[in-house]
């Protein structure tokens, strides 16, 4: 029993060691997002609180904590409270399988990529629950839009993952990174990387696909009725999901913790830093897209997902597998 508890405590320690940095970096990433956005538009962005405005997110969080939580009288109270909790939890538990380095991962499970995919597909529920339980028109419409959008783009993300898995021969995320030692998958699978990036934008409801919270039509979409800390949890969960998508892109296509070239000044930098650089690189791309591209119309969004991305990525699966078969490169023999 004693050993059981010692194992439990080391695990809890490890989990905290992962989650606290993730939460802090989520707050920082919001600041970065706003700064990049302002930079592109020739504004200053948040620059008042702390050096360079670094503590802006913390000030915002403090404000959210002290605001009153309003629960609408006609809402379904249990589901209403549960929705942000679900969003936040799902955004955080997926970090368990992201490998930060060789043997530097919380849970090195065999089906890591399936786990990530499953958890990100569960993310719809936080939004649907919030939209439905608010018992109000705008949140409901936002939730329905968001659910349809996320289910559509998950299909193409799934097919893109199949492309990568064909080259790796394993569902384990560490194996996926190790398979990229000679060549990052972004080079042979570049079209898939582009489609993954755009699908990730749609999956996380980022502009130009932020129709679920299109302020001109739906006020704030599914979060309209939320206030105070519950709103902040939706917001944190959303950004944690964006970071997770960036991490997924870094692991699948940009070689995870591996350094770009295996020579001295580069391979001296420890793996976790490389992964963080890659996540930040992808995130800045996300922010730049947000700053430059106008919002899509809903039918264009659906057309892009089902009529362009899905057929093209299916075609690429055939292409990849025939290439691997013809040149006898199939892994796992």
């Amino acid at each position, binding site marked *: 029993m004693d050993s*059981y508890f010692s194992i439990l405590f080391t695990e809890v320690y490890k989990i905290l060691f992962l989650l606290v940095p993730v939460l802090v970096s989520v707050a920082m990433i919001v600041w970065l997002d706003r700064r990049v956005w302002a930079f592109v538009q020739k504004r200053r962005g948040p620059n008042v609180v702390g050096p360079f405005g670094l503590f802006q997110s913390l000030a915002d969080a403090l404000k959210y904590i002290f605001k009153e939580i309003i629960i609408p009288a006609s809402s379904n109270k249990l*589901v209403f409270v549960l929705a942000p909790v679900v969003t936040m939890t799902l955004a955080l538990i997926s970090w368990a399988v992201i490998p930060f380095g060789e043997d530097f991962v919380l849970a090195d*499970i*065999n*089906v890591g990529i*399936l*786990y990530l*995919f*499953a958890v990100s*597909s*569960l993310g*719809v*529920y936080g939004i*649907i*629950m919030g939209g*439905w339980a608010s018992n109000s028109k705008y949140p*409901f419409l936002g939730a*329905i839009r968001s*659910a349809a959008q996320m*289910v559509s783009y*998950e299909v193409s993300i*799934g097919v893109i993952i199949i492309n990568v898995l064909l080259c790796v021969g*394993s*569902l384990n995320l560490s194996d996926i990174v190790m398979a990229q030692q000679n060549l990052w998958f972004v080079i042979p699978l570049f079209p898939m990387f582009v489609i993954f990036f755009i699908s990730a934008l749609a999956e996380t409801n980022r502009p130009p696909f932020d129709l679920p919270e299109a302020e001109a039509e739906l006020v704030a979409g599914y979060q309209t009725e939320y206030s105070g800390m519950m709103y902040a949890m939706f917001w944190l969960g959303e950004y944690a999901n964006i970071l997770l998508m960036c991490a997924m892109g870094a692991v699948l296509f940009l070689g995870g913790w591996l350094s770009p070239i295996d020579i001295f000044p580069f391979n001296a930098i420890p793996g976790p830093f490389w992964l963080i650089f890659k996540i930040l690189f992808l995130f800045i791309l996300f922010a730049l897209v947000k700053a430059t591209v106008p919002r899509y119309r809903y*039918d*264009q969004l659906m057309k892009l997902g089902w009529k362009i991305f899905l057929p093209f990525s299916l075609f690429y699966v055939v292409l990849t597998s025939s290439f691997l078969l013809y040149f006898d490169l199939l892994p*796992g023999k």
Partner: protein
Amino acid sequence: MIAHSVFFYIFSLIAIVSALMVTVSKNTVHSVFFLILDFISISCLFIMIGAEFLGMIMLIVYVGAVAVLFLFVVMMLNVAEQKGQWFSSRWDGGTHIPIGLLVSLIIFFELIIVIGGWKYKPDLLNSLSVNISSDVTNTRSIGNVLYTDYILLFQISGMILLVAMIGAIVLTFRERAGVKRQSYVKQISRERDEGVDLVHVEKNKGVKIDA
């Protein structure tokens, strides 16, 4: 080992209770939420017996896709109108109950047959199924069986699903008149000459636009 069985009982308790709540709860949307909880706890049980691939696929397919569609349909239905009609105390002709009884009887007998099979022929499972060696991940071993011995059945089930999908689309598709469709080709291939016309206007004459 103790922790293992504790978790087993927790997950199976959640699975059973939520399965009950699916049928018992008055609110249809709550029923679907309990169904989702049921799926999740069953996939946890799959993972506990080491069938991690099956557990994850269960989550992705049932929870990530099927239950979302369920929720869609249930939320779109006008639930308020039907409230109190299903399973109501007053007798509405009893159309649902005989069919429900029949289906549950059939499932009950099927369960008896399956469990009876275990009881009287304990090695039934070994003679029917492929032995899985523990040093291969179960994704690989499922793939090895599915794409070699059962490739024909696998392909046929895929075909059936495809036909069902096309059938559903054909049945529900209706052509609507007067829909303006956007054509990217038409938009992009617009040239300057077609769109703009430079006219030299004489003084005090004006231009006829619809010439």
